[in-house]
């Protein structure tokens, strides 16, 4: 069993560990830190400790031969009969990682009516294709078991999946079946000196970044949201198509009906966005920003706080647990700029932040940071737009 241990000879009794803990898992008693059962092993105290006095003890090193696993595999999700955007983005990242490792890029697609021509030039070295009527509707056990068998045969070291709702369903299934780790919503992926995948994502509510490893099992599975990485297609590569027989499994699931949703304008593709954040507290305060958006043909979106408060729909949330956007121009009103939010705006070309607090995170990453009251400012801008 793992425990946190303090080297009393290094500890200077500064109390930083106690202050750094979000869970009240450590208290200074008789000069030295004592950990209690609130500790979640988030390691914030280890990082915060100025003298590196805290370490983890009792972690058994598991033996796992990672050398049998090689290559970067991408789950190719088909949407409306074409390769989804996020799959294309992941192919580019997979190629970059594979080049660092001197390994290959694989694609895997499990669907009905697959356009093989598109797959040949999608930028991977080999595509494993399982095609059949049984895959027309997504059934977790059919797709999951087929995918599991392909992974067991091909043994990719890394498996990348788009963080769509389908991807987020497949990944935990595969991860448990393969007894390996999964890291959700990575915003950056790198290779360390041992060839392991460093999976970077905002953590603990989104104000801290965490680097996560899957050292002792394979594949290393990561999901990434749309628009986090850019599409970089390697057209020179002609992919080899390898057809895989679907397994003879009867699904426990029965998809009775597919109900297309009413087309809500998608904020991830909007050119102009007006984003509102925690500075907005009440439903009636939102109207002025909607009007501003309407005036300039933009879409209204928000940070997580307003969605959780029930003031904005989930489909309009920007950030790690919402959508990544790539607008040409975003006006951010009353948004502080947590790592959780910033994870979604990497693709924004020009960001103009309006905030009463000159020290808000958003002000430092914005192209222009305007220190002002958001309500007064928005009302006056709206008035001046309407006068003309």
């Amino acid at each position, binding site marked *: 069993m793992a425990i946190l241990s303090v080297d009393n000879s290094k500890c200077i009794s500064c109390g930083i560990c106690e202050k750094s803990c979000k869970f009240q898992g450590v208290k200074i008693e008789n000069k030295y830190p004592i950990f209690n059962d609130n500790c979640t092993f988030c390691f914030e105290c280890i990082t915060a400790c100025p003298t590196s006095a805290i370490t983890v003890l009792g972690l058994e090193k598991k033996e796992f031969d990672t050398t049998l696993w090689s290559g970067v595999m991408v789950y190719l999700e088909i949407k409306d009969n074409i390769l989804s955007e996020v799959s294309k983005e992941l192919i580019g990242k997979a190629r970059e990682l594979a080049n660092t490792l001197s390994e290959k890029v694989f694609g895997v697609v499990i669907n009905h009516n697959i356009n093989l021509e598109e797959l040949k030039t999608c930028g991977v070295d080999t595509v494993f294709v399982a095609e059949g009527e049984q895959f027309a509707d997504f059934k977790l056990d059919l797709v999951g078991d087929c995918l599991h068998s392909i992974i067991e045969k091909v043994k990719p070291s890394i498996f990348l999946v788009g963080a769509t709702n389908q991807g987020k369903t497949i990944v935990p299934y595969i991860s448990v079946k393969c007894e390996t780790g999964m890291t959700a919503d990575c915003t950056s992926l790198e290779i360390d000196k041992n060839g392991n995948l460093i999976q970077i994502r905002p953590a603990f509510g989104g104000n801290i970044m965490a680097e996560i490893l899957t050292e002792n099992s394979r594949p290393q599975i990561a999901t990434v949201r749309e628009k986090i990485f850019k599409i970089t297609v390697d057209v020179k590569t002609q992919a080899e198509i390898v057809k895989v027989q679907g397994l003879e499994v009867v699904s426990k699931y029965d998809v009775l009906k597919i109900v297309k949703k009413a087309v809500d304008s998608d904020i991830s593709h909007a050119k102009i966005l007006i984003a509102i954040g925690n500075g907005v507290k009440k439903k009636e305060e939102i109207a002025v920003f909607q009007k501003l958006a309407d005036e300039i043909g933009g879409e209204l979106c928000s940070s997580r706080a307003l969605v*959780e408060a029930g003031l904005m729909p989930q489909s309009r949330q920007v950030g790690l647990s919402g959508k990544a956007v790539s607008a040409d121009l975003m006006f951010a009103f009353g948004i502080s700029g947590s790592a959780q939010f910033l994870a979604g705006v990497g693709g924004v070309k020009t960001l103009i932040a309006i905030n009463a607090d000159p020290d808000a995170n958003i002000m430092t990453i914005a192209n222009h940071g305007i220190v002002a009251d958001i309500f007064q400012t928005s009302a006056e801008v709206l008035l001046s737009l309407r006068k003309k």
Partner: protein
Amino acid sequence: MKIAVCVKQVPSDNKSLMDKKSGTLIRNGETSVINPYDLFAVEMALRIRERVGGEVFAFTMGAGSAKKVLIDSVAMGVDGGYLVSDLAFAGADVFATAKTLSEAITFVGGFDLVICGRQTTDGDTGEVAIALATHMNICGLPFVNEVVEIDEKNITASCDFGKHNAITKCPLPAVISVDKDCGLPRIPSLRGKLSAKKAVFPVISLDDLFDKNNNNYGLSGSKTSVLRIYNTVFETSNNIIKEGGLEFLKGKFESVKKGDL
């Protein structure tokens, strides 16, 4: 019908709870709260109980203080709860969390349906429900926004897959994760609060579980490890406009309106 609902205690300092009337943060001096998404899971469980009868039990995995979220659940109307707590469970990632919950739910036994919130506000992965179903080797329906039909044998639910909902039927027992569209969580009644005060919650520890190998739980049983965490460092910007910001903004909006980005 016997229903398990998984709830989690999360830190409250990510400004997610706002009092809509006063516009202030709800703190009550508390640093941790029930994961807001789990309130929808509890609500769904109670609605299913109202439809088909039965019992609902909340499960939470965490330190002793996590008992608070069981009290919250009972106050809303849940029949009872279990605190899944052991030092060996601490530091679990998605894989190990789902493993622990699966063992705990199996230990109590007899559940037809397990309901989880779509994600937590601290871990934010949205992956535990399906991992739990896979560990338990039963069906899992993700991102449910409506339970269309449920009887002793099957559940039919609408699962959100982005541009469409898939109305999917599967046999029970099953795990579902519920979205925020499934119905507003109820406010605890006075009677609920009173019974929550009196409620006693059994603790499930490692010794109770079928698999007692502590290497399969918590930090040791996790497949991922945190290499390091760091605060994102922001340098001071040179682009801050303190004077004349309004005029700048008016000009920008006017040119955008004319089509000039």
